[in-house]
């Protein structure tokens, strides 16, 4: 999970990587008492990207400007998220902006070090960064990285400082179990020192059982999360809301995406990614229907489960009981295929419901019924 810039920079400082002098503010009183020398950068603290382009980073040259920037930013939302605080930093005198990151890469099978002599907000528009596939952090070799850097970074002083900073980023990633530690921009200040002007650090959530800091970051993010998402996480369902009209309840990440794409292929759009394979019980399906029945953009619901280890006759019983109690009038189409699906079809038929044989026929059915209800 992505942590805030302030949390990320604290990790950088723990490895003696320089950051601008700063103060994290949570109230207007704290903003008034701020002691960072002007001018300053005032930055929204959110665990979401793209905040600069959205107006979440402002320059303030006076105490009054700082206060109004604080007020404005705390009232903003970034990808739906309210800032937890504002970070005030001394304004940097920039000679050049670099890009330096370590990130897990699937084809490397471990850490990749990425460097570009031209960093900053438009990094994605330029040529791809240089990549040094390291694998395990302990396999980092300064001489190997230097050989790659020589053709792209002619400033020897900068080059050597980049090499030692890269080693420290790997040490941070290893010690704190991070999948990404990115500094963009890594500023070359007048005089040649390297200063981390931003920090994007992603913690590996799977390490929660042995990293207290990761556990508290997850707890804090869950407390802030939308109620729907939180309820799903607690019930072991996976939910991502989308913009479409077809509510989708499916099993397994890959099949859920395949069903989303099939809905698109039939000329409609999915309203969600909702994977109930982690809890295909009356409680799990009950929560799924509750969320989709309440969501105003959902016009119809498709349940598509392919039973491997899952016994679809049990799912059919669960659905029959649940649908009998349900009060919503939104149309529901069912498709239970795989293990014991003959029994599932019988159970559904006896309850007056159709079991579609394929994903495609079920998708066509729900798309038609939703379109019919709307016309």
């Amino acid at each position: 999970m992505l942590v805030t810039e302030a949390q990320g920079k604290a990790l950088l400082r723990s490895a003696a990587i320089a950051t601008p002098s700063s103060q994290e503010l949570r109230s207007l009183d704290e903003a008034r008492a701020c002691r960072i020398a002007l001018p300053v950068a005032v930055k929204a603290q959110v665990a979401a990207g793209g905040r600069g382009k959205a107006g979440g980073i402002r320059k303030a040259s006076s105490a009054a400007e700082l206060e109004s920037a604080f007020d404005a930013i705390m009232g903003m939302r970034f990808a739906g998220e309210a800032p937890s605080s504002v970070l005030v930093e001394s304004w940097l005198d920039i000679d050049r902006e670099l890009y330096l990151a370590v990130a897990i890469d699937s084809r490397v099978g471990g850490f990749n070090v990425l460097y570009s002599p031209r960093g900053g907000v438009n990094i994605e528009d330029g040529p791809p960064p240089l990549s040094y596939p390291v694998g395990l952090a302990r396999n980092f070799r300064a001489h190997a990285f230097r050989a790659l850097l020589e053709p792209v970074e002619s400033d020897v002083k900068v080059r050597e400082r980049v090499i030692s900073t890269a080693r420290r980023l790997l040490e941070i990633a290893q010690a704190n179990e991070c999948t990404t530690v990115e500094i963009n921009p890594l500023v070359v200040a007048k005089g040649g020192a390297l200063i981390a002007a931003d920090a994007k650090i992603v913690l590996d959530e799977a390490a929660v059982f042995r990293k207290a800091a990761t556990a508290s970051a997850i707890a804090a993010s869950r407390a802030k999360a939308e109620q729907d998402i939180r309820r799903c996480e607690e019930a072991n369902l996976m939910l991502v809301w989308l913009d479409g009209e077809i509510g989708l309840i499916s099993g397994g990440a890959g099949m859920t995406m395949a069903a989303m794409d099939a809905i698109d292929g039939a000329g409609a759009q999915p309203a969600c990614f909702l994977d109930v394979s982690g809890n295909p019980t009356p409680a799990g399906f009950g929560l799924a229907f509750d969320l989709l029945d309440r969501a105003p953009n959902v016009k119809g619901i498709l349940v598509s489960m392919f039973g491997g280890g899952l016994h679809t006759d049990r799912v059919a019983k669960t659905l029959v009981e649940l649908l009998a109690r349900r009060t919503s009038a939104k149309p529901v189409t069912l498709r239970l295929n795989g293990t014991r699906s003959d029994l599932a079809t019988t159970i559904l038929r006896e309850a007056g419901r159709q079991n579609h044989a394929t994903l495609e026929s079920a998708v066509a059915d729900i798309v038609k019924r939703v379109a019919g209800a709307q016309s």
Partner: protein
Amino acid sequence: MSILLGADARVLIVGITGKFGTFSVKDLAQSQTKVVAGVATGRGGQAIEGVPVFSSVAAAMRETHANAALVYVPAVVALDAVLETIEAGCPLIAYPGDGLPVLDAMEMRAAALDHGAHLVGPNSPGLISPGKAKLGFMPSFCYAPGPIGVISRSGSLSYEACFRLSSAGLGQSSVIGIGGDPVRGVNAAEAIALFHDDPETRAIIYLGEIGGSEEYALAEYAKRPDAKPAAALLVGRTAPAGKKMGHAAAMIGSYAEAWAAKVEALDRAGVVIARNLDGLAAAAASALARAMKPAA
């Protein structure tokens, strides 16, 4: 032939006394797979469904000459169990569990490479060579023997995709779940190389998704003049950027990780693309037809 797992498999289940372990003893037996040993710390000398249990992998290997291991232990102790299995000399290990820290996956992968062993997983249903043996928990009824090598990042998608291939008369040489995590044992490039060297495999089917860069390994392979024909289905065309779609690795962080960029690269390399699941069997048949054509 098949890849990694053949009819001579002698399977050892680490964590045999757990829920998944005891389920697998029966499930593998029904799939013509020989389970020769189990390992459960402190339970040596017992038997589960007639399978002898040992207290260490080394003891089980010594007594039973197992040549493949299925490791069913929780993520907190998975690294220790997989390292023990690799260092005991087992040449093929499947670790299906999910929620494994990436650093542990990296250590598992490095240890497997050091010992010349093949690790399948994490976050994968395992590996099956239909009609020969199974090293995992995938539903056996979905598979049939045949000439197609299948590589998948998703368990659920591979079950239904293979069920559709089998129903269309397109059997599989082996089906390997490379898993939904960012760092894995056998990766796409290595799985492709194994299928390339397997004479029974005539065509390769790749079931991929958004996020990460594994799919580019197939694009690079397909450009080779001696490449076997390939078809691919990538899911997540309708997934938004920046959101994790269930799997740890299924998130679009950059353009290259998006559906369109990957499909374009595969298409340009000559891989037959199935736009949706319902086009998969036809795409596979067309790749296979290319393999059947005698060389001009």
